Each structure stands twice: as C-alpha cells, then as structure tokens.
C-alpha cells in the first residue's frame, strides 16, 4: 500500500528539514494551491470526502464551506489546528507532529488559504514538548524561506502560524473549549450555534481541524480528490492512522487504507494477543467509544461502519481488553479519568461522572451494593447528548453503557464480593 501521511517519517529519527521535505516533493501542493482560488481548494477537499480525523468524522469540506468568505466576512479569520491529543489510547497525531512537521505546516498554509484565514494556531497538549520544539524549528525555516509570513512564495497571501503549548486538559480537545483556552479563559466549551466557523476565536470566523486532517490536505491538492478517494477501501476517502494498544504482541500506529477491518489490524499488524492472554473486547477509537466484541472484528474501521455496530471510529486508536483484565476495573480507570477531566461547567457531567467513578471504585473494592448497578444505568441513560453541555460526558458513557450491556454478569459478580480479578 502507498504510504501518504507517514512516507517521510523516519521512526526514531529527526524529521525532514525544509530542504529534504521539498526534495521529497514538499510545498509543491502549496504552490499549486496558490495558483487556484480558495473556493477551488475547498471544492477539491469536499470532493475528496475527507472526514475529520479528530473523532467526530465531520466532512472537512463542509466545515470550510460554512466560513463566511470575501469582503463581507469579519476579519481576521483564524485557522486552528487541534493538537491536544488527550484521548485515552491515542498517539497518532504525535507521530505526525514529531515525524513530519513540514507536512502539517504545508497543510495549514493551504487550509488557511482555502478559508482566507490570516492567522493560524497549533494548539498542543502540554506534554508534546518535543513536537513543539520541532514545529518551532520547522516554522522558522518556513518563515526564513518565505513559505510563511507576508506574501508567501511571492503570492498575495500572508499567514502567520503560532505554536501554543497549552496548560494541558482533556477538555481542551473539544474545539470550542480549545478556543476559550486559546483566548486565555477557562477551557469551557461554548454552545452551538453560533458555530466557530462563524463566531470563533475572539469572535471571528475560525476553523478548527485535527492534525491528521490537516496533514491530508497537501496530498489532496497535489494528487486530486479521485486519487484520494481511491486510497480507501470504503467511500470515506484517504488513508487512516490506526493504533493498537493493550496486551497485543506489537502495539503501535500504522497508516492503512481507510476502512481496514479490525481483525487485519489486530492480527497482521499487532501480531495478535500476547501469549497467555485472550481477546475479550476492544474500544475502537479511544476511551470515549463503545466496546466491540469478537463478533464484530471483521467490520471495516471507518466512521459509518463503526457507527452501524453501535460504536464510533473516534481517533481510530484502539485499546484492547484481554480476558485477564477486569472490565469493571478498566471502566473504572476510564471513568476516573473522565470525572477528573470534566470542566465543571454543566451539572450532569460535573456531578454525575464522579458519582459513577466512586460507584465503580466501590464495586472494585468489594463494597458494591445491588442498587449500584441502578446508579450506573441511571447515568448511562441520562448523560446523553443534548442533556449535557458538550460531548465529554456522553462520550464517557459509551464504554460504561456498553460494558453494562456486554459484561453485566461481571458487574454483578462484584456485588457483595471482592473483584474476582484481583
């Protein structure tokens, strides 16, 4: 298979310099884009059917098309890269950030050009220090060679890119909370409408895209939407960075065609379960997706197929649960994380998640009571989209609700007894 996003990445090595990147064909797409109108670039991305790689799978072209364009738009417009990769199990954006910063920068410039943004931010999670260092270095090369800055590459387009190393909070990965944080406020989400493409950073039109999404842009522009769609096994365009963690023989991240079935990832790339461990279930796209059982392992990993089996593709970085791990314990770990990361803005999330976490702790500690399952069911039922302010708590309920469904007996075995796995 043709590697697209990761072809320049040298594992354990330094990323390509500007010269090396250009030698490998870098910044050609940018030159090509600058010869097109912003609307034409937008159209290419729409036709490529690139779905947002941050986890929600929203069509990137449609997001861009909702940005007010031309003279009547409020300026400055902003383009923001969401690099707050904090989903449990996710490490794909880190690979792109550290491995090929120029690819991201080129993607940002083209994207900003397509929506006529004049300022761009890369919002990094606190721990991505190495990525920040490499980005800053790559940016200075790009500025020095006029790939960035005023009238870049001799065109009429100007752009500045700023690297923002955040204070570090799961909530910052939520696009609107990210914008609040970038403005120097608490990372509390904003309600929609208005959408950020109309009223975003500092009240101006703003596009927030995920790192992997943006890295796809130069390739779409360079090779065209048909080529991009042809990379995929399904009708969702492109390749996808998939990850596997848990007790498999070879955990890692791979770039594969979009729609690669789960089992191929597990068996061909992660080399199956470690000896002595059996497969029990997996969370396909990070902590806030629902468990997938053995029976669904042949499902193609794309947004639509995952949704069809009641879960989400999310980040595409799966966490495998083996048969020697207590499902209650695993869910407890996740819910503890989500409870801690709640921003505290809305009641169901702020008060509900800690209650869930404490209940699971009690179950794990052998202090479970029959009514505890009722409490967990209650939260799985009520912490839904629309009931809460943002998607954090509904996401947190996905592993819990599916665990309650698939592993009911295991939950019940915790009541009035110590954890059978301990």
């Amino acid at each position, binding site marked *: 298979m043709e590697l697209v996003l990761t072809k320049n990445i040298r594992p354990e090595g330094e990323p390509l310099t500007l010269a090396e990147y250009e030698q490998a064909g870098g910044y050609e797409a940018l030159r090509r884009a600058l010869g097109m109108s912003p609307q034409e670039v937008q159209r290419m991305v729409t036709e490529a059917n690139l779905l947002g790689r941050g986890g929600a799978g929203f069509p990137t072209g449609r997001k861009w098309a909702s940005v007010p364009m031309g003279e009547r738009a409020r300026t400055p417009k902003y383009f923001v890269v969401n690099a707050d990769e904090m989903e449990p199990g996710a490490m794909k954006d880190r690979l792109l950030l550290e491995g090929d910063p120029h690819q991201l920068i080129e993607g940002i410039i083209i994207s900003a050009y397509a929506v006529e943004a004049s300022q761009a931010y890369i919002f990094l999670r606190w721990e991505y220090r190495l990525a920040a260092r490499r980005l800053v270095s790559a940016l200075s090369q790009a500025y020095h060679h006029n790939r960035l800055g005023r009238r870049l590459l001799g065109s009429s387009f100007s752009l500045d890119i700023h690297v923002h190393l955040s204070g570090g909070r799961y909530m910052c990965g939520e696009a609107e909370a990210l914008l609040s944080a970038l403005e120097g406020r608490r990372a509390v989400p*904003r309600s929609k409408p*208005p959408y950020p493409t109309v009223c975003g950073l500092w*009240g101006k039109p703003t596009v927030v895209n995920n790192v992997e999404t943006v890295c796809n842009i130069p390739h779409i522009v360079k090779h065209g939407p048909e080529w991009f769609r042809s990379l995929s096994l399904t009708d969702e365009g492109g390749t996808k960075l998939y990850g596997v963690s848990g007790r498999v023989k070879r955990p890692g991240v791979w770039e594969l065609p979009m729609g690669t079935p789960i089992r191929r990832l597990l068996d061909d790339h992660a080399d199956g379960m470690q000896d002595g461990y059996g497969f029990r279930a997996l969370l396909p796209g990070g902590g806030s997706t629902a468990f997938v059982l053995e029976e669904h392992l042949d499902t193609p990993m794309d947004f639509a197929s995952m949704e069809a089996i009641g879960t989400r593709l999310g980040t595409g970085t799966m966490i495998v649960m083996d048969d020697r791990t207590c499902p209650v314990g695993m869910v407890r770990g996740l819910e503890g994380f989500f409870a801690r*990361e709640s921003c505290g803005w809305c*009641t169901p999330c702020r008060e509900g998640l800690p*209650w869930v976490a404490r209940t699971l702790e009690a179950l794990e500690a052998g202090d479970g009571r029959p009514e505890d399952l009722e409490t967990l069911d209650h939260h799985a039922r009520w912490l839904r989209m*629309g*009931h809460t*302010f943002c998607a954090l708590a509904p996401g947190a309920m996905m592993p819990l609700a599916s665990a309650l469904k698939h592993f009911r007996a295991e939950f019940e075995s915790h009541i009035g007894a110590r954890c059978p796995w301990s």
Partner: protein
Amino acid sequence: MPTIYVDGKPYEVAEEGKNLLDACLSLGFDIPYFCWHPAMHSAGACRQCAVKLFRDEADTRGQIVMACMTPVTEGVRISIADPEAVAFRASVIEWLMVNHPHDCPVCDEGGECHLQDMTVMTGHVRRRHRFRKRTHRNQHLGPLLHHEMNRCIQCFRCVRFYQEVTGGRDLDVFGWHDGIYFGRHEDGVLESPFAGNLAEVCPTGVFTDKTFKRHYTRPWDLQTAPAVCVHCGLGCNTIPGERYGLLRRIRNRFNAHVNGFFLCDRGRFGYEFVNSDRRLREPLLRGEDGELHPAGLAETMERLRAILQAGEAIGIGSPRASMETNFALREFVGAESFHDGTSRLDHDLMETIRTVLLKGPGRSASVQDVAEADAVLVLGEDVQNTAPLLALSLRKAVVQQAIGIAQRLNIHLYHDSAVREAIQQDTGPLFIATPDETPLDDIATLTYRRAPDDIARLGLAVANFIDPAAPRPDGLDGETEGLAGRIADELWNAERPLVVCGYGCGSRSVIEAATNVVCALERLGKDASLACTVPECNSMGLALMGARDPGSAIEAVRSGRARALVIAENDLFRRMRASDAEALLSGAEHVVVLDHLANRTAERAEVVLPAATFAECTGTFVNSEGRGQRSIQTFVPEGSVQASWRWLGRMIALRDGLAERPWGALDDLLAALARAVPVCARIRDLVPPSSYRLHGQRVPRQSPRYSGRAAVHAHEDVREVAPPLDPDSPMSFTMEGYGGQPPSALIARFWAPGWNSPQAVTKFERGVAGPLQGGDPGRRLIEPEDRNRLCYAGHIPPFEPRPDEWLAVPAYHVFGSEELSAATPAVATLTPAAYLGLSPHDAERMQVEEGQELGLDVEHEVHPLPMRLRPQLPPGVVTVPLGLPGLEGLELPTWVKLVVPGLSERALRT
C-alpha cells in the same frame, strides 16, 4: 405575537427572540432553573430547565432541550409535564444535592432559598448518593459578605454577575470537575462595590449578608415595607427588614426604571446607622449647666413654645430629608426664610441642574435610559463613586451598539456567552473626561484627564463640532480638538446619545458644557438625554421645592432678623464651610435641631428632637432623574422618635396656638404640598392614599409565616398587644391583610407560592424583567418645557496651573463620602483614610513620596494628609476625598496651598 404550545395548549408569547424559559415563566409556568437569571440571561450550565421539544404535532417522542437555550419560534411545541423531562429535572436536582450540605436549619438562606424552592418543585426527596461529600475551605471576603462554599451548586451566577455585570476582577472560579471553587485568589475584601448583590444572585447560601448574620432572624420573621435608598441621589428601591425594633437588613426592590435587580453596597449595607448608639431617641434640652439632657415631652414643648414665641425663626432644610420634612419646615418658617442647608457651591449647582432639566433642552435620563444609551459622553463625573448604580447601567450601555454584531451573526441575544464572545472588545463608544482615573475606565473608548474647566471646554468643543452655531472655545490643543471631533461623530451617529454630568466636579461650567452638547444634538434633531448626578437622596426634591442659599441665612442671623434657627436633618458641618456653619450656629439665639444621630450640629442645639429615619417614617424623595418615589415606614421606632414633619407640625400648632397639628396624617400634608409646590403635585399619587383598602383590607408588612407575635411581649404582658396603626399608608404592621399582589408601590416582599427567594420577583413582573404589574412605582415629576431651548453657554478660559497653588478637586468614595452610611460599622471599616491625591509630576517636583504627610492649606486651615500618587492626575491639580472623616464641609474645587512639614513653602517651590 408568536403562539407556542405548552403541553398541548396554545399560548401567545409577547415577544419573539426570547427563549422558552423566559416565555414560560412570563406565562406563569413554573420551570426550575439556576444558572439563568433575568438580568444575566442564559448560560446553559445547570441543565435544570429541561423540557421536551417536539418537531411537530405528529412527533410523540420529542427530545429533551434546555428551555433557556431554545428560542421561541412560531408554533413551537414543548412539554413541561412530559415524564422524561420531569425525571431528568429530578435527576439534575439529585446531582446538585450530591455535595450540598443540607444544612438548611443553620443556613441564613433558609426560608428564602432558591435551591430549596427548586428542590421542592422537582420533587427530589430520596438521597441515593452514598459517598462522601466534597468540602471546601471558606474565605474571609470582608465585612459585608459571608462565604460558605460547601453549599455551592456551581451555577456560575456569582462569577458571571461579578465579572460581566459589575466589571469586578477579584472573584473567579478555580479548579476543575466537581472541585470547582468560587472565590478570590486569596482571602480578602471583595473589591467591587456591588459585591453585596451576590447575596441575592446566589441561589443558595454561599454568599450571605454578613451584617444580617450579626443580628440574624429568620427571613419570614422580618417586618418589611417598600422603601427608597437614602444614600445617594439615584433613589434605588429597597426592602428594609426589621425584627424586635432593630433594622436587620436591606434587600433589593425591583423597579425597571431605577435599580432593576441590583443595589450598590452602600445602599445595601449602609442601613445600620438606624441602630447606631449615636441615635437620638429622646428630646434633649440644654440645661443651665450648658449641657444637653434628656427631657420629657411636656418639658420639651414648654421650651419650644418659649423659643418660638420669642421671635422670628428661619429654617434650614436638608437634601437628605424627605419632601414632607422640608415642606413642613418651609411651612413653619415661610418660603422666604427657608434655606436648603447646603454650601453656596452646591446650591448653585443644583439651581443649574434644576433649570436645565425643567426648562430644557435636556431630558433627564432614568437609570434604565442610561443602560439603553448607545453612545455616552461622561463629563467630569466619577460615576461609580458619585452615583454607584449608574455605573452598572453604563456597563450595559457600552454593548448597545455591539449587540448589532451578535444580531448580524444570528445569535440570540439571550445567549449571554455567545453574545459576549461575538462582541469581545468591540464595545462603546463611551468617553470619560474626568480629572482623575475612574473605575469605569476599563470600558471607556477613550479617557481624558484634565482640570474641570478643561473638561468643560472639551464639552463646548464637542457641541461646536455638532452644531457650528454653538460657541467654540478658543485656543484648543490638538488632542482636545481631535477627541472632540471623534466624540461629536459618535454622538451624532448614535440613536440614543447620552451625556452624563453632575456634582462630581463641583463645576457649573461642566454642567453647562454638558448642556451645550445636549442642546446641539437636540437642535439638529437628535433625541439626546442628560443624566445629572445629584449629591443626596432628595437634592432634586429640595431644588424643585425651591430654597434660599446659605448666604441669605447667614445674613438673616447676622442682622438679628432671625432669632431662632430650626435645622431639620442636617449636620451643617458636612455641607458647608465650618466658618459658615459656625456663623449660623453661634449667630442664632436659639437653635432647634431635628435629626437621627448625634452630630456636631446637634451638639450646638438648645433643643434636639429625635427624628425618625427612612425606616421609621413614610416620606417622599425625588431622585436625580426627577422621579418622585414614596418610601414607606418599615417599623414603629421606640422612644419619642417621630417623623421630623410630625415634630414640625407640632411646633406650628404650638407657635400658632392651634388645638391640632396642621396635618394629622401624611395625605393631608401632601395635599398642602401639592397646592404650594405645583411641580410636585404628582407626588400625592405615588402611592394609594392611606384610606385605600383591597377587599376591605390593608396590605400587611409581615409575612403570613411571621412567628411569635403573641410571645414577643409575653415577658411584659401575656395579653397580646394591639398592633400599631399606620395613619400614613394603607399598610398594616401585622401579618393580617390582603394576601395577594398589592399595587406595585405597596410591595413589601416578593413572594409567590413555591417561590420564597428573590427569584419570586418574576411573578410580579409583566413578563420577565419587565415592569412590575400595574407599572413600576414612582412618577417622573419633570419634563423639559422646551427641548429646543437655546441655552449655549459661552466662554470658559482654559485651566492655568498656578506656580504656588493647586486646584483641589473633590474625589468621592462609595464607602465614606456619604453621611449616614458612614455611621454604619461595616461601611466605616471600608472607608479609606483621608489622603491627598497628587500627580507624579508634582510629586517629583516637590520631592515628596507616596505616604508622606503633606499639609493641605485651605484658606489658612491646614489639614495634614498622607500623599497618594494619582498617576493620571494633571499637574497643578490635587484630589481631596470630600466627606471622609476630617474632610467634611470643604467647598471644592478651590485653590489650595500645600505644605511639606519641615520645609518652608518658599523652599518647597524652589
């Protein structure tokens, strides 16, 4: 008018663009809520107001939405009673109660707690959460508010109010998840002078009134009445509460035209002077030993008779006394001998303001009008310190134009955070021209720091830019010229331009210049308004009634024409130069003083009569807008305390040998006042007459839950004491009476079944945040006679600094500058020490440092004061905090000398 369907029934909603919560509450439905507030709109945080929304008639499943975040649209179908919505709302309350301490029996909020009400409303009764509650450390937030964080339900109202409504920066939310904390970054006094509103904004007992806590009583045991604040000229509407003869707290009384939902902390916490040890409760007579001694009524009357028959008296009224008291004194001495008891300067300023507002062209702006202005020029006024609540209106005014940004983005205006995010810093225009920095500078488009005369010249220049027929000040500098042009453009382009001026600078020129701007705008067809601050709660009423200046009073005493001086509720040493006060007090043969508190003037009297405070008698005040408002007596005071006008009525009867007082009750006095002062005729109709009854009943001051009536006096007499009768209003001093909603002027508390907290106000309004049912109480007494009146003031020379003198301009402080509130312990602790404000330029020239003591030499009287650096003060100008202890009675601005101790003045200069 859109129709909405609630649980299958159609209802007409008054306005489009509202949210469903607002609309449903306006229709009288009960939907529980926390983060939404009628003055702060929707946040979407608490998720309590969930209802079911249906796509159309065929949709039976529907989806849960937050009523506060969902717009009213034509034909929208919702259900409040839907079982799923009911269950979700109960679940939200259950979550909120997870960490709540359930300490209602020991909580000051108990009995008027929105959280209690909403919990009862949703029906959450069984606790399922079996884990430990989180606990917090409470903070010391100063003498006004008590902090109890464990009770917090994290609705975010406090920080939204504090930061967005008041502009405060030292209250914030800290931490994450269920550990979030609302407080300061460290213990300390909350800086905003509006912090006290948190006691009402907080839906539970996190922020409670600390002064109330010190003499706590259950809120339902308070006797309350509709009153008017006496601590500045705005006349905010309040609800004082009394129990056992002690005034225990003040709460806000909603009035859409005046204070809306909020009060300033001077108004809320300044009340304790009523309970002061310095209160005069019995008549005092000067004995042969030269000392004042308590005296009986008969003895007092005898002495008064002797004084009054000895010869002619002149009267000194007071801008802090009611219309009734001032009028009674005027009736007693005759209009020719009635003086307003203020300095020549203040008399002159009030004459100017009265003329402008009565004759035109300026129409006086209400507090509400100020909030709706879309371009504002402030001339010479430190608004937050001279008329505190007006500052909140200006904070609303600066977003009036910016709201258009949100509207163009199709953002619903109730969506508070989205509106703010869309607007960001694009607020204004607001121009502030003052001698020194002001707490509103953070929202100013531009500020201008000059001496009063230069501020006036800026005003003239603005007027001249708008209307070239207006006089043009000569010799303008470039900065002023450019600024004036910009201000003129902004005012001209606005729909509702406003000019704010007032007493703050002590400068008639500034008021005249403000008038020029309004005059120019009006002449060219703009609907401009003028907000003039006035020094005290009845300055405007006194000016409308007309009173003579202090010079003529001194003359009358000096010439021997007046032998007796009758002073009503006025400490002369606070309002005029000590030399003038001295001339009056030592010149008169007999001095009779009526007042609440022992003060320097009362000390000099021969007869002192104990006068009722605002809480102890009914009276009328006219605010800076010219709005007459009745303040109804809250409780019957102990001792011989009586309304001053009653004492004065007695004195008239005594002097004239009448069998009865000329006015038995308030309505008689008001009838006489209406005849004698036609401009005030409407004050008769502010409140229904005392004979008014609703279904044959009076309006009760006590709640139906008022407890212990029979027990209160049981230690004295087990028989129940008959409640006192109120001859001055249709209200009773009991819990019996009409239980429904009375006319708005007689609302003693906001309460409705199931709504025990201040949130019940919604049930009294015509639509959420709308006017009270039947119209807000109070009436405008004045309208400009001629809005096209040409009254351009002419030449004002530029300010010229002097080589060896400084122009001392007054500075004001919310806490300390006003007489009565300063006698309140909580306010006294917040009053800054007197100081002298000096520009860095002058400080450097004089080689003095911050904190160093300087002598302020005002007409050879030297006040030693520590120096405070005022970075924005222009050279040649110093600020003096007028009214602070030691600095009362100065007539500012005036030229002063500065003395550095240890240096001769000459040495200082060279």
